[in-house]
């Protein structure tokens, strides 16, 4: 019976190739979406999965007030690892993982001298690290690795890049030179971790225990990470309490010793290691984090898209029931019970879903290639992970059940006598509300939400890039000044000579050696303004930008009061922005000119007030700012190119040639300002791509379904169309007749989707301080788009049906 069911199902599906293809295409896309997202989700939730004591392992993080906001930093004060070990009970192990910034590494591997500038993923720790992280040792072992303090342990991949061709055993005893003169001996080689982890260290140095000065207890470095493995029965709160006491004690000691003028508040949290990957609120560099909200959003998107494909299947299958009535009737007459009918329908569903799954396998491959910008690359490894495949299996079963159940139940309800004698009545396109219409509306509601979302996200992104930022960034090239060379012997003042040389190049129209106006990261300090003798001083945290005299004219920033900087002026003059003036309560920019502000003991005179411009992305409001004239490592070469962009490649080559007369070529990294601003919205770009893909998929699946339904309707109404044509109906009136019902449903979907999308998009835009307004036009545009797409899809079939010679369609009856 099963064999026959499948055989019949194959023949049935083959006979109705169009519908089968539509269903398979929709389901393949739906399953592919689920598969890709499942791989991503499996990858993200697999972080630290193989850490043996994961449940008891915590990361200690530091909380501080910054800009009047509670801010959590990923690091701790360096001496804490010793302090916690010595003073805190209930702790099984304390593991310091202190990131090391090293400017250069030299390796002589016998064949060549390898020199790496600023190598990444170097940490300092002690042997407790190897107890926490389960490395597989290829040479050496955890016990002996740090017996000698000048030791280093490498991962296999790093070892291969330094010493190609050598076996792990041969590497023991080889040396690596850090920072010109620190020679470390390789004491162990470990296999790279096979699970996603924040333990990305490639070179593991020994952290020598030292007696830290008291001041170190008050500094926090985000790259100094501390892990605590609690004893089984210990509540983190009791450990935290002791840590807080330790911290407070050290602050008291420091106060006694140094008598500082400021107050210091900090607190701690212990974040479970399993949660660290999702702790996006923790500030730290170079640690990949993922928001759980985003992951749940992705899961939701996957489910919706697969459900859209299931709806297509349900709609097309139930719509075909009238055609199949006779067959079902015969089966029932011959003694088929409901079970065998269900088996027949489910055989078809199983075949369609499985072919869809096979096809999705190919699509998944291409998706990973095409969307490589959006998908974490390691997620590919989770495509065939056992858990992924098990869940995917579950999804396929759920798809089969949810797609097949409703059509199957409908088929068992077919009355055999009626179906054999007269065929089933074809209630297509009439006003009666039914499940199929409901599902269709649901499908288009989702598609419509995506369309509106895509339009608004697109508008906001365009706005972030096109909006006047308060300065002119066109044709501006940024080149970083080699780090720390401003004060390096032999390089002092070189940037000025370089500027003069660059100025001579044709194609360079203007120059400034300054911090660019808008960039991520800034420094800030409290500056005090005293309105009048005897009044209370006003202290405000001001962002600081170090600039040169040409800055305002370079970026075409208008002064609203006072004067610009003068070249070579070494008096302590500053320029504030309008917000700073307001924050200090000064009545007007003119009023501010000539007043002084104070930092520590230094007084600065306000030379002018610049019009507000955006210093950060649109998520942040414009903050009070002070521009200062001077030389700082953060400054960079701002180079304005001529407006003729065809010349740019030659100009850049010329700049590079000039550059190499002063600095090494390897430091020459240029970028266009436009691009750096776009990069600030990388996450939003990703969201935009994601929503565009989701929109495309949902519209595409919706159109597949709509096309199928239109085909069936046209077929089922063949006779009616014939009669109408005989009576004189035009082709356009028939196209209208067939399209009308669908377009009506699409309009209902638009009405339902619009408020939902309006709410969701306002929620998203709330995060931005500067944003596009959400207008009715967006919704009208999205609605119009949906109607046009639906109408075009239906028309293809409607026109075909309308131009058939009525003689043929009537004879067919």
């Amino acid at each position, binding site marked *: 019976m099963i064999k026959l069911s499948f055989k019949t199902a194959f023949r049935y599906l083959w006979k109705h190739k169009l519908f089968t293809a539509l269903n398979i295409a929709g389901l393949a896309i739906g399953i592919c979406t689920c598969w890709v997202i499942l791989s991503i989700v499996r990858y993200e939730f697999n972080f630290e999965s193989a850490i043996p004591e994961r449940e008891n392992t915590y990361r200690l993080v530091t909380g501080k007030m910054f800009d009047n906001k509670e801010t959590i930093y990923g690091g701790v004060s360096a001496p804490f690892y010793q302090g916690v070990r010595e003073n805190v009970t209930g702790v099984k192990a304390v593991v310091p993982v202190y990131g090391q910034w090293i400017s250069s590494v030299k390796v002589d591997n016998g064949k060549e001298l390898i020199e790496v500038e600023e190598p990444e993923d170097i940490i300092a720790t002690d042997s407790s690290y190897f107890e926490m992280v389960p490395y597989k040792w290829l040479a050496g072992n955890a016990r002996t690795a740090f017996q000698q303090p000048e030791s280093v342990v490498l991962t296999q991949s790093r070892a291969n890049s330094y010493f190609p061709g050598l076996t792990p055993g041969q590497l023991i005893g080889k040396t690596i030179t850090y920072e010109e003169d620190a020679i470390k001996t390789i004491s162990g080689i470990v296999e790279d971790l096979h699970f996603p982890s924040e333990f990305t260290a490639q070179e593991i140095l020994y952290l020598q225990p030292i007696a830290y000065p008291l001041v170190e207890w008050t500094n926090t470095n985000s790259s100094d990470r501390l892990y605590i493995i609690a004893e089984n029965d210990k509540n983190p709160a009791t450990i935290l309490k002791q840590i807080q006491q330790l911290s407070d004690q050290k602050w008291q000691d420091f106060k006694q010793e140094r008598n500082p003028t400021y107050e210091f508040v900090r607190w701690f949290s212990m974040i479970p290691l399993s949660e660290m990957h999702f702790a996006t609120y923790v500030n730290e560099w170079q640690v990949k984090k993922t928001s759980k909200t985003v992951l749940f959003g992705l899961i939701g998107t996957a489910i919706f898209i697969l459900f859209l494909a299931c709806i297509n299947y349900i709609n097309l299958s139930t719509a075909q029931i009238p055609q199949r009535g006779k067959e079902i009737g015969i089966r029932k007459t011959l003694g*088929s019970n409901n079970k065998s009918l269900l088996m027949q329908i489910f055989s078809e569903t199983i075949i369609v879903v499985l072919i869809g799954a096979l096809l999705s396998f190919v699509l998944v491959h291409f998706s990973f290639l095409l969307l490589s910008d959006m998908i974490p690359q390691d997620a590919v490894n989770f495509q065939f992970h056992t858990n992924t495949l098990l869940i995917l299996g579950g999804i396929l079963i759920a798809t089969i059940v949810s797609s097949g159940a409703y059509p199957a139940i409908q088929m068992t309800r077919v009355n055999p*006598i009626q179906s054999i004698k007269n065929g089933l009545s074809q209630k297509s396109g009439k006003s009666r509300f039914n499940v199929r219409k409901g599902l269709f509306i649901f499908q288009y509601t989702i598609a419509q939400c995506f369309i509106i979302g895509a339009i608004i996200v697109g508008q906001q992104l365009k706005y972030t890039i096109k909006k006047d930022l308060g300065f002119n960034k066109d044709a501006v090239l940024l080149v970083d000044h080699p780090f720390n060379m401003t004060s390096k012997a032999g390089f002092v003042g070189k940037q000025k000579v370089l500027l003069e040389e660059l100025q001579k190049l044709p194609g360079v129209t203007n120059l400034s050696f300054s911090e660019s106006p808008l960039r991520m990261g800034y420094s800030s300090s409290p500056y005090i303004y005293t309105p009048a003798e005897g009044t209370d001083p006003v202290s405000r945290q001001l962002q600081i930008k170090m600039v040169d005299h040409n800055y305002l004219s370079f970026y075409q920033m208008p002064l609203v009061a006072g004067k610009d900087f003068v070249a070579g002026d070494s008096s302590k003059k500053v320029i504030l922005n309008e917000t700073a003036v307001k924050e200090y309560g000064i009545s007007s920019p003119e009023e501010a000119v000539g007043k002084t502000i104070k930092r520590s003991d230094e007084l600065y005179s306000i030379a002018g007030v610049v019009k507000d411009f955006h210093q950060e992305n649109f998520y942040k409001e414009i903050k009070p700012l002070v521009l200062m004239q001077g030389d700082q490592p953060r400054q960079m070469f701002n180079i304005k190119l001529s407006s003729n962009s065809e010349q740019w490649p030659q100009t850049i080559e010329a700049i590079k040639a000039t550059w190499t007369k002063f600095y090494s070529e390897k430091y020459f990294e240029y970028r266009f300002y436009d691009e750096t601003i776009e990069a600030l919205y990388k996450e939003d770009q990703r969201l935009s791509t994601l929503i565009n893909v989701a929109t495309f998929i949902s519209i595409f699946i919706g159109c597949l379904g709509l096309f199928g339904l239109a085909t069936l309707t046209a077929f089922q109404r063949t006779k009616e169309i014939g009669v109408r044509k005989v009576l004189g109906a035009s082709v356009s009136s028939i196209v209208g007749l067939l399209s009308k019902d669908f377009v009506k449903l699409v309009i209902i979907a638009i009405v339902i989707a619009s408020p939902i999308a309006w709410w969701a998009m306002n929620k998203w835009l709330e995060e931005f301080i500067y944003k596009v307004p959400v207008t009715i036009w967006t919704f009208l545009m999205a609605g119009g788009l949906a109607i046009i797409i639906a109408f075009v899809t239906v028309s293809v079939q409607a026109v075909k049906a309308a131009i058939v010679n009525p003689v043929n369609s009537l004879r067919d009856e």
Partner: protein
Amino acid sequence: MIKIQQLEKLYRTEEIETLVLNKISFEVKEGEFVAVMGPSGCGKSTLLNIIGLLDDCDGGSFFFNNIDVSKYNERKRSALRKKNIGFVFQSFNLIDELTVYENVELPLIYTKVKASERKERVEEVLQQMQIMHRRNHFPQQLSGGQQQRVAVARAVVNKPKLILADEPTGNLDSNNGNEVMQLLTELNQAGTTVIMVTHSEHDAHFSHKIIRMLDGQIVTENILL
């Protein structure tokens, strides 16, 4: 075999109620060949559906092998039907997706006959209907006469005690029609009871008894010698 007393059937729509069968009583003995005749809409097909346990009645009683089945639910009717009754329709009603062989095999699958026995019985009946050479063809590849022979084969493969034929020659030319009538006669001679609805006097004369109906009632019952 079949005993019908005071049988009534009503068709209701939202506005009107039509009495399709009006207190009909008759009897069919085992081994009989009965033809039911009458103009379109007189209720003969409805009667056949009720006898075939495809439809239920609204009044009266219906005994099948001395058991009152008029109150049977769908499950019981289905069980009784698939073991005892074979159907032959005017429009053949073969399943397009199944081959000749599979169409004939289908009732045996539903009655859970073992695969080996199924093969034997299907081949036997295909031989008998002289359609064996077409066993792997699909219905659309056959002529009308051949299709009806397959339909008859399918109706008899389960060795039913009763065959119900609804205008079995209605879609056939006279040669093919005669062949089908011959087949039914042979089956009847072999012991199967046959009830046939027909418009054709010619076909009706293959039977033992002609029941004539009009407006839901039996007008005459002629026994042919």
